[in-house]
């Protein structure tokens, strides 16, 4: 099992800025990092590739001082150090941009960037003018374009990310950790980011780039370290490896990289949405009159960048959010006024985007999570209460059928990894036998093996004649699965196209508003 590939040159031959030796980190029930050895050379982009839960973020959190390692040593510029806090890390020139940004929404970008190291006037008051000036200077040096006076809540995701990077640079970072930086970006923004990252290395920065996407790892990195189950399985020079080899290392077996979709004709229309208007949490109109239809055995892909009405669409269809106007027809029946239970009873299912908040009761065990959404139905419910023998039997067979890796059905859903949580939700929703399934971001954050699994399940449903609405921020996923594609931009359908022959560039343009108003 000890396959340790070391094809890259020995670290002595290059200028090493970070060296981690034997880093181990334990959490209750989990070995997150198991004797990880890792080094970073000056000016390189070093990708950390691995499935979800492999331990990539954990080891970087150790380097950034968020976790103290249970064993192992850290050397920065050849000097052994202890990093008990992010403040120490910043002092050592280490900056980290998290997957979920750590910005204060109501502050401007300039205020956020200088936070913690604010410039003062002579009267010891905050010198915002100086802050703006320094920010602009940094922004020019590194080609990171931001509007210093814009509030974070009003800035695009890409600009927020640039602000995060600038914040690290402002604090003096020479070593930058980027945690899944492309997860939230539109395709064009990804290109911009890659340009930025390359120019940062030219200025002498060294970068750890965490990702589980083979595509971008091979495109951006100089070297790549593959981590599986908390262990380093190999460090390779990127140019001398292939995607297939990396995928194999990552999951420990061969994976099919391309979805194999068989052709078949879609059946009759099963769900129709007409002029649907849905408001968001703040009462603003987030979905501005959307119309589309799904047929049996068809996958309708809903493309778009995060925050363009996807949540409202998902919750509007399943009945979690009342529609302000418009109609939803299930077959012939108008279900606009039905609640969630009525819609589930008619055959709607939901794989929610926020699986931990909407999908699972994390403190319930797996059996009770399988029960959720069935609790009023026979044979789960009987006259005098729930039939727990039946429920447990169902849960056991669901866990087996969907290959949920768990020590048993008595453990809480919280103890499962992200991929296994998602499998549990899929098991529940698919075994219910839906006629329409809304799958929102069904593979977000999952590893290659799990993604493959989810995709093949969705295609199976399609073959069985289920109508599927696939809401995804991954254009790749939509292009490979969808029979038809609609693009949501600012709460409106701005573009529709058949899945076959859809031009990626046009969709990308539509996603970023390039087609709006045409």
């Amino acid at each position, binding site marked *: 099992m000890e396959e340790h590939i070391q094809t890259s040159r020995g670290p002595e031959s290059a200028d090493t800025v970070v060296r981690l030796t034997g880093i*181990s980190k*334990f*959490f*209750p*029930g*989990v*070995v*997150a990092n*198991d004797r990880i050895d890792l080094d970073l050379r000056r000016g390189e982009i070093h990708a950390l590739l691995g499935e*979800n*839960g*492999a*331990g*990539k*973020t*954990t080891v970087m*959190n150790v380097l950034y001082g968020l976790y103290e390692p*249970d064993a192992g040593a850290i050397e920065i510029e050849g000097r052994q150090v202890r990093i008990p806090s992010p403040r120490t890390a910043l002092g050592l020139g280490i900056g980290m941009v998290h997957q979920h940004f750590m910005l204060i929404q109501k502050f401007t970008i300039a205020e956020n960037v200088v936070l913690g190291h604010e410039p003062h006037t002579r009267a010891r008051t905050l010198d915002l003018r100086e802050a703006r000036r320094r920010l602009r200077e940094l922004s020019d040096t590194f080609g990171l374009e931001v509007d210093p006076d814009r509030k974070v809540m009003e800035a695009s995701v890409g600009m927020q990310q640039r602000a995060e990077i600038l914040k690290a640079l402002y604090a003096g970072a020479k070593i930058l950790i980027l945690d899944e930086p492309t997860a939230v970006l539109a395709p064009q923004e990804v290109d911009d980011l890659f340009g930025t990252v390359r120019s940062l290395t030219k200025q002498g920065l060294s970068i750890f780039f965490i990702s589980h996407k083979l595509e971008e790892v091979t495109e951006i990195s100089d070297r790549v370290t593959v981590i599986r*189950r*908390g262990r380093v399985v190999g460090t390779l020079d990127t140019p001398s490896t292939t995607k297939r080899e990396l995928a194999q290392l990552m999951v420990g077996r061969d994976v099919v990289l391309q979805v194999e979709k068989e052709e078949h004709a879609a059946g009759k229309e099963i769900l129709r949405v007409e002029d649907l208007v849905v408001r968001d949490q703040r009462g603003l109109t987030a979905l501005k009159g959307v119309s589309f239809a799904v047929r049996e055995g068809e996958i309708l892909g809903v493309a778009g960048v995060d925050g363009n009405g996807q949540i409202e669409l998902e919750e509007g269809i*399943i009945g*979690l959010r009342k529609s302000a106007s418009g109609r939803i027809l299930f077959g012939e029946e108008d279900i606009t006024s039905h*609640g*969630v*239970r009525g819609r*589930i009873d008619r055959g709607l299912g*939901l794989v*929610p985007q*926020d699986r931990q*908040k*909407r*999908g*699972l*009761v*994390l*403190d*319930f065990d797996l059996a*009770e999570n399988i*029960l*959720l*959404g069935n*609790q*009023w139905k026979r044979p*789960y*419910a009987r006259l*005098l*209460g*729930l039939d*727990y023998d039946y429920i447990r039997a169902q849960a056991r067979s669901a866990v087996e059928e969907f290959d949920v*890796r768990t020590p*048993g059905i*008595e453990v809480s859903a919280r*103890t*499962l*990894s*992200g991929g*296994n*949580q998602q499998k549990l939700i899929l098991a529940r929703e698919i075994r219910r036998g839906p006629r329409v399934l809304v799958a929102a971001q069904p593979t977000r*954050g999952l590893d290659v093996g799990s993604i493959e699994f989810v995709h093949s399940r969705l295609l199976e449903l399609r073959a069985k004649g289920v109508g599927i609405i696939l809401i995804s921020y991954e254009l790749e996923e939509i292009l490979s699965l969808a029979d038809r594609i609609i693009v949501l931009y600012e709460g409106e359908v701005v573009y529709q196209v058949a899945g076959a022959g859809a031009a990626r560039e046009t969709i990308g343009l539509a996603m970023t508003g390039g087609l709006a108003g045409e």
Partner: protein
Amino acid sequence: MPGAAGGARRRRIFVAAKRVGLSLMQPVASVIIATVIGGVVMAAFGFDPFSGYAGLFRYAFLSEFNFTVTVLNSIPLIFTGLAVAFAFRCGLFNIGAEGQLMVGSLFAGWLGTLISLPMVITVPLLLIVGAVTGALWALLPGILKATTGAHEVITTMMMSWIGLYLTSYLVKNVLMDPRTTLPASNLISEQARLLTLNRVLPFLFRSPTRLHLGVVLAVLAAVFIWYLLTRTSLGFEVRAVGSNPFAAEAGGVSVRRNVIVALLISGALAGLGGTVEVMGLHYRVYDHFSAGYGFTGITVALLAKNHPLGVIPAALLFGALTNGGAGMQLKAGIPIDIVDVLSGVIIFLVAAEELFNALKRRQEKRSLLSRSMGGAEIDGRSEA
């Protein structure tokens, strides 16, 4: 395969037993630590903690009479403890159990003074009236919470004071026997009273006792609530709302409906608690007869970690503390206030769950370390 099924069953029982053992650890440890701290306090004030605790224990448990008083004390606490615990499981903090209890007992007691139907009709009827009126007292907070989001801590408390003064007013101005100066209603009819246990089970008691069938009702209520919570879809939905309302909603659960239902059931339990006191012990509604049962119920629920069956021993402990504390003061001259010190420390420790969790985590880490040295491979969980 009966063998395999039996194995799975055994395994499940083992897992369940382990869980019960683990969840008992913290409350039991809290009580033990509180006892030690209480002893230190006693010693600091010049009392002998050993004779103090000996006295407390003797007056709480030793002798038939003392023990029955302890149990008698715990009956209303079981009901209010259940009331608070049930609402808690739905994520609601019903701190108005005191008012629900008084209102329930008032209307049940009132009716008890008016009718004298056969016992098999009167007793259930009064219990129903007490439960329903108690539930109604929690209805408004439930509706307000479900529709406007008004916080139940505020609204149940407000309703509680309204209830307390309403019962007080009605007792003194409408129900009070004008021929006496006792601020209480007339006696309820014989048929409306719960039998004392020495009449039902004479062989168990050497002398007449005030302990009444209410204790049986309290235990039945605890078992019923336990069944409701863990074995029915109503209980499942209530717990789902309490644990993650967002996921519950997506699972076809109406959060609003469950919030109202949970508060209704909670209020009904509190109302029953007061009614049982009137029907079994006082036989009339005294003005302000409740010795803060609704509030002590919060402590009971906390110590029981909101488990319906855990409420019984927790209520018994607080029943014993009040009873034994009085004896301790009387015989050993140690002020009863020490009992408040004890319950204060217990609450503090139970609430300081984090402390215990931190200790537990350290232990788990240690056992994990030794396991990983053995080369066990564990699937990684999602990265934080």
